[in-house]
């Protein structure tokens, strides 16, 4: 069992100054490295490959496990009898990442997710419009990131209403009913960025329908790849939402199935923010050296949450820039950053991929 410092999860979400936060991360992350070193064989191989003193290394110097390793390696630090849930990425191509959770980890993820979202939504549960089909959550088997997101966020709402039918088409009657019932009070809208855009905002626009919500918060995430393919920027996205839905505070978030719980919410100034329990580093794609604020590179996410799998330091294939720490104009402490998108996939050539 891994034991955290007492009251770690009572820390203010965006109120821990840099010196205290970095010291806490250095301590907890090296303990997590030791924990996974003892419990995960593949992780031990990664660390032993070139021995270094990870027990005394800063959290920025711990081994950053490439996110893709969760696709083809058994990266787990628990016995199969302790597996409470297996999460998998909604990966559109090839193998999906497999993340194993025990009961404690799943609980901890929810707990931290609640803390983060409450700091944006308040404690009052709002009537909630989910931009997805009801069946997405109900599908059998390992849980997809999308289902986990919908389920996780559902907790923050009441009177849940799914805006799409089983064919992922706009169910205008349900949405209209939702609006006439709750349109004048605070509501929560949640969905995956591209689904919100294509299946909801564009579908409404095509039918020339608009609503005038009095006080809505839209939380969306899941990535911008398909949006970029259609040249839809954050600005265009937000402008369309104001036009179609009325007074809405729009918050993108960045997160990944490898570190469910510690999500990065977008503030009013358009920056993503690190909560107390995680940090973002930017590494040079060339040689993985740490880059300065303002420089674009590969995003590494460090989170204190993962104990059932060695995912506390993850090297993503996303490009981003950290702009600073503790001094975002929105007033929240922690690093603030932007994501520029994924490094395009290298073309697979040659023998093993011939007949397709």
């Amino acid at each position: 069992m891994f034991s955290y410092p007492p009251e770690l999860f009572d820390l203010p979400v965006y109120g821990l100054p840099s010196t205290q936060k970095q010291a806490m991360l250095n301590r907890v992350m090296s303990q997590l490295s030791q924990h996974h070193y003892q419990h995960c064989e593949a992780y031990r191989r990664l660390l032993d490959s070139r021995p270094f003193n990870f027990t005394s290394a800063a959290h920025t110097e711990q081994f950053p496990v490439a996110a893709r390793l969760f696709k083809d390696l058994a990266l787990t630090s628990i016995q199969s009898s302790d597996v409470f849930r297996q999460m998998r990425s909604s990966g559109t191509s090839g193998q999906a990442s497999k993340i194993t959770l025990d009961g404690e980890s799943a609980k901890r993820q929810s707990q931290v997710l609640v803390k983060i979202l409450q700091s944006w939504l308040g404690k009052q549960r709002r009537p909630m419009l989910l931009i997805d089909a009801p069946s997405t959550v109900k599908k059998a088997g390992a849980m997809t990131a999308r289902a986990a997101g919908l389920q996780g966020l559902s907790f923050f709402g009441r009177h849940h209403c799914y805006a799409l039918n089983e064919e992922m088409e706009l169910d205008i009657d349900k949405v209209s009913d939702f609006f006439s019932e709750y349109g004048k009070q605070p509501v929560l809208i949640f969905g995956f960025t591209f689904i919100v855009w294509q299946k909801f905002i564009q579908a409404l626009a095509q039918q020339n329908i608009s609503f005038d919500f009095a006080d809505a918060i839209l939380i969306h995430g899941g990535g911008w790849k398909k949006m970029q393919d259609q040249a839809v920027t954050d600005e265009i996205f937000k402008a369309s939402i104001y036009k179609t839905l009325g007074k809405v505070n729009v918050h993108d978030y960045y997160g990944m199935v490898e570190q469910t719980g510690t999500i990065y919410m977008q503030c009013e100034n358009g920056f993503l923010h690190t909560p107390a329990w995680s940090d973002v580093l930017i590494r040079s794609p060339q040689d993985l050296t740490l880059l300065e604020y303002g420089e674009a590179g590969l995003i590494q996410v460090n989170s204190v949450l993962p104990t059932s799998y060695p995912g506390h330091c993850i090297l993503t294939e996303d490009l981003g820039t950290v702009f600073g720490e503790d001094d975002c104009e929105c007033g929240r402490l922690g690093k603030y950053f932007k994501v520029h998108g994924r490094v395009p996939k290298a073309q697979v050539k040659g023998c093993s991929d011939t007949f397709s």
Partner: protein
Amino acid sequence: MIHLVNVNQALVDWHIQPSNGFFDETPVLHDDIVDAVAGFSAYLFKQVDSKQYPEIVSLAFWFRHAHLKQVLGESKGDFSQKNVNRVFHIAPANVDTVFMYSLLLSVLCGNKNIVRISQRSGDVTKLLVAYLRQYMKSAEGALLASLVSVIEYDAQYQDITEQLSHWCGLRVVWGGDSAIASISDIAPKTPQISFPDRYSVAVLQLDDTSNIVSVASAFLADVLPFTQQACSSPKALYWLNTSRIHQEKFWHQVNLLLASSIHQFELSHKVEQHVLLQRLIGNFGMMIIDETGKKIANFAQLVNVGVIARCKVKTLTSSVLAAHTGFGLVIEKDIVSVDEIACSSKLQTITHRTLSDWQNPNGQFKRVVPIGKALEFSPVWDGVDLLQSFSQ
């Protein structure tokens, strides 16, 4: 008439349609074919410059008249044309020129050929097919029209693969283990030669007498094409009794040469190099030797050399090499004897430059060539005598 007409034309794209002559199976004079193939080589030389398409120029060079005479003269193949074979070639998605070697060797044996190219074929494949189609319209190239057709279709249309397999007397599968497995299940009685997953390695030995620039340049000629993903691209570099100083001099030269080299490496390949290193460590427990000289050791990572990267290891197994997917990661290993090379049935090519005469290692491998020649084609490929197979 052959039952090619049964292929559902809506699902396929004939880049080169079977001509009327394609269905006439009267043998053609061998010397005329040699002239037509050598003519294609000359035609290619006129079309492309070596800076832009070095692999096409290599192909053209290989099929020049003088070299053809030499290759055919040395071959045990029978070119007397008693019967015409039908050969169905399944080309790899993206080692773009290999299908053309396979096809032209079969043409030289007087066979009728259908080549299936992948929908994911690279530009070079498409360009080569376009040149061939153009050349066939000339008086010199007309003969090839009766021997060659090129088809593209989605691999999921297994019935097309089945029909073409029934048409042919020999199926040639250029592809990895999984491709071969899936194709072998289709019309399983079809006589077949196949080229499964292989890995290749380089062995270098340097001292003060070595011309390091020429060695570095030859090494890059082996590593850079196809972003190191061809079976013959060396994945590992064995240093035979070579000092660190000479190794560093070599990498310094590689770095300098890379600045002016033509290659297809992009940022994504750099990311692949990091991921691949971790995959090999995580799966096989590969141990890295730190030669950075830093006082405080860091987590395992590669050493960047321009668009490629290197990493020295303590032990190197055939499993690691077989799992190496290319993308520009060179795994280095110091050895005192060539017998330390990770030989196995999957080791295809050993490229070498040593101070004294080359001695073969004790162990399995398919081919040994001097450094710089890894991707040079040979009519005996992977232990298969293609001319003999095509002329049986």
